[in-house]
């Protein structure tokens, strides 16, 4: 027990050697951490070089923009990083918001060009609002009729938006009817409010519809937000008024700028309004106002640079990514190839995914976190569900493609390679990710909030809807955006469900066959011509990565803003 061993080795004996060993180990570990990062960074630089070809520009052109844009911005960035972090945050958001806004504008513009006319949009929005109104009104009038509520919840959208089953589902109704030997008489469908609106003999002009259904609601939302923040109704009305006037100005200036009044109105609603609201908040709080210098410098720098370049007649780089690439279809000749139809396909696929996975995923997460019993047979079932979700997250994406092929194409018989099938297959793939991240967000809401709500006499569902969900929403949104980023890049399921290799025309319905961005990139990767391999392909990769970057940056901003300590 108390035996002493004077001859035992003392750890410090060879201290100089072990210090060296420790240092070497630490350096090795750091190198391992950096290995993946550095190699991917290098590869990205190669791709970016192929896509933009900066070296094909005159050196004067590069020099001009380096002096007017890169150097000032880099200096500002160093300043924010070292000395003024709040201003850095402001700089990040004020430069990022317009980018996100322009992307949204582009998305809506594509939607109005390819998917629905402004009148159809108006009819859709009006009918959705009517359905919501019906549901709310029923809840007010008969708060205790649960079963009726269920009927209204699902019936109202059918009456206002869908009408009786559209053609794509007819097989279900008619086959079932035939099997049962009954004639439902559904061959003359009952039309919905939406379709009634579409057949109105007199409709307002397009700009009025757009102003009423898109700009005005966003303006009111912004106005309410500002009014609450400043505690002043006048400020709110000022925001609404300024937005509407700004949008109306577009009737003159839009066509003059060549973007049409529609483009102008979208820009006002998605770019000018959020940026204005954010900047107003920054200025009023006087926090990080210096951050505003960053976007101003960027815009001024580009303006000055372009004037100088024009005056000196310097040629810019012959980049593969340009307006033509983003707005034209793919082609046999590399110079004409573009990614536009694939982008439309990706956007429409994302719409399907959001509609299909967000409600189900959040619903499942709410059940697992708020309702699930931990004991009894139900408890066992819940444990099984949890394990199963974890495992589904690890199932290879190609298997989900096989599932989509077997289920939606061979059994349901939706057209091969259509957007619905792609969206549902990829949606099933990201469903476990959405559930898991929503669960984490809901779990992070402190229990005291729930207790307080119960203490006020709220029921469980009231607590969830009015306390837990609003608190967890930023977290849920962050997780969903990250999952959607994964969805945009998924390729294997698209190959399995037969998404089109190259489409010349953008799809304009959800049952159309379409290609998506990663599918298009994959087709380009099998072209042998160097112009494709080192030009068009690189441009496609950069476009895809840019979209992902914007989505992830948005998710991070939301996370940082609302993170709970």
């Amino acid at each position: 027990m108390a035996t002493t061993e004077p001859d035992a080795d003392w750890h410090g004996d060879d201290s100089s050697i072990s210090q060296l060993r420790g240092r070497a180990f630490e350096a090795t570990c750091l190198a391992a951490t950096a290995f993946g990062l550095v190699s991917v960074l290098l590869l990205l630089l190669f791709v970016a070089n192929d896509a933009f070809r900066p070296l094909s520009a005159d050196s004067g052109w590069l020099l001009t923009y380096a002096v007017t844009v890169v150097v000032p911005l880099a200096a500002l960035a160093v300043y924010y990083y070292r000395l003024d972090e709040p201003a850095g945050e402001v700089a990040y958001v004020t430069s990022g918001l317009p980018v996100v806004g322009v992307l949204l504008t582009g998305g809506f513009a594509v939607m109005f060009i390819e998917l629905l006319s402004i009148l159809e949009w108006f009819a859709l929005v009006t009918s959705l609002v009517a359905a919501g109104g019906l549901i709310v009104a029923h809840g007010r009038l008969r708060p205790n009729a649960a079963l009726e509520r269920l009927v209204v919840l699902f019936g109202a959208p059918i009456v206002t938006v869908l009408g009786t089953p559209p053609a794509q589902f007819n097989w279900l109704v008619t086959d079932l009817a035939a099997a049962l030997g009954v004639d439902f008489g559904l061959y003359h469908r009952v039309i919905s409010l939406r379709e009634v609106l579409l057949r109105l003999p007199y409709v307002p002009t397009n700009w009025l519809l757009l102003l009423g259904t898109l700009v005005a609601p966003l303006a009111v939302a912004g106005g309410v937000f500002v009014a609450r923040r400043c505690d002043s109704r006048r400020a709110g009305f000022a925001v609404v008024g300024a937005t509407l006037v700004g949008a109306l100005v577009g009737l003159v200036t839009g066509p003059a700028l060549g973007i049409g009044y529609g483009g102008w109105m979208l820009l006002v609603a998605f770019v000018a309004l959020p940026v204005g609201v954010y900047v107003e908040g920054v200025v009023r709080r006087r926090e990080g106002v210096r951050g505003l210098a960053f976007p101003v410098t960027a815009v001024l720098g580009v303006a000055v640079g372009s004037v100088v370049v024009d005056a000196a007649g310097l040629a810019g780089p012959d980049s593969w990514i340009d307006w033509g690439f983003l707005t034209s279809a793919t082609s046999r000749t590399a110079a004409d190839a573009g990614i536009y139809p694939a982008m439309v396909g990706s956007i429409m696929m994302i719409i399907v995914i959001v509609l299909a996975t967000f409600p189900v995923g959040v619903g499942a997460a709410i059940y697992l976190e708020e309702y699930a019993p931990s004991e009894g047979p139900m408890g066992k079932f819940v444990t099984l569900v949890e394990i199963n979700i974890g495992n589904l997250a690890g199932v290879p994406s190609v298997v989900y493609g096989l599932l989509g092929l077997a289920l939606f194409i061979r059994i349901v018989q939706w057209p091969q390679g259509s957007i619905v099938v792609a969206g549902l297959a990829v949606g099933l793939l990201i469903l476990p990710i959405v559930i898991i991240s929503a669960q984490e967000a809901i779990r992070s809401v402190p229990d005291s909030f729930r207790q307080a709500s119960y203490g006020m006499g709220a029921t469980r569902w009231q607590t969830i809807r009015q306390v837990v969900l609003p608190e967890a929403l930023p977290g849920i949104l962050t997780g969903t955006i990250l999952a959607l980023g994964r969805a945009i890049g998924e390729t294997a399921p698209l190959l399995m469900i037969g998404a089109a290799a190259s489409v010349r025309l953008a799809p304009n319905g959800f049952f159309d066959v379409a290609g998506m961005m990663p599918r298009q990139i994959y087709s380009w990767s099998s072209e042998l011509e160097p112009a494709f391999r080192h030009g068009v392909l690189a441009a496609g990769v950069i476009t895809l990565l840019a979209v992902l970057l914007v989505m992830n940056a948005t998710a991070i901003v939301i996370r940082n803003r609302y993170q709970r300590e």
Partner: protein
Amino acid sequence: MSTETPEPDITSRPRGRAARERMYQYLLLLCAALSILVTISIVALLARDAITFFTLVNPLDFFGGTEFLLSRDVYGLLPLLSGTLLVTVIAALIALPTGVAAAVYLSEYASDRMRSVLKPGLEVLAGIPTVVYGIFALVYVTPFLRTIGLPVNTFNILSPSIMVGIMIVPMVSSLSEDAMSAVPDSLRRAGYGMGATKFEVTTGVVLPAAASGIFSSFILALSRAIGETMIVVVAAGSQPRMLNLAEPLQNLWQGFQPMTAAMVQINSADSVSQLGFSSMFAIGLTLFAITFLLNLVSNRIAARYREEYE
């Protein structure tokens, strides 16, 4: 005055309120149960065609066959399995040591500022679409391997495997780091109290204590490598091939066709027999079974280490 106001009846339970509550609960339960339905439909739908396949092809010929030729209706799994095995082994050789070393650095050595840069950076690696990694392998890595003197073909198994390795590094590092962070500080202090250096504490105390968590991250990463599709589809070629055991190094320079790539090829082939089409489901079911089992095992191990320290 105040006596005139009727007492609000706060104890009343309006009829239907309970029913409404129950309705929402069942609706939400339905959402949660959907995940089970997904699993069941994967198994059922894959099995449906796989069974048709196995009635026509002897399972022994499938699992033991050394040749895979769509055009001659010969379906042996071993060449595809060779490709999958190679990708997994090479990727593991890259990702497992790198991932654990990165986890050690992040959990034991990195300053807060370094962590705040490196961790999101590693997460970005996992967020890059796999088709992009495939293009990296085909267009940039393979020519690079040639310039440094390796005799690789245009389509080879080496460069996609390297990319798969880099892709799964963050998976190993983040899960291993979680395991190392879960090791209680008291163990580290005990080590320092004995006069051990930081290196000795890290390798002698933290790593063994976190071993089961690290091991579970390995299995998960391997399962990801086995199921990885686009990288190998783009860059590994479409030639099913058996492993050349006589000259192991030769394998690296040649193209292989792993299971996932074979499924994609069958599906996109212009004319494929009914049997070939159902072989895709047999391969898919095998793949699903392997990855599902690995995930289960990994979760089990991870659950065990969580119990150890909580």
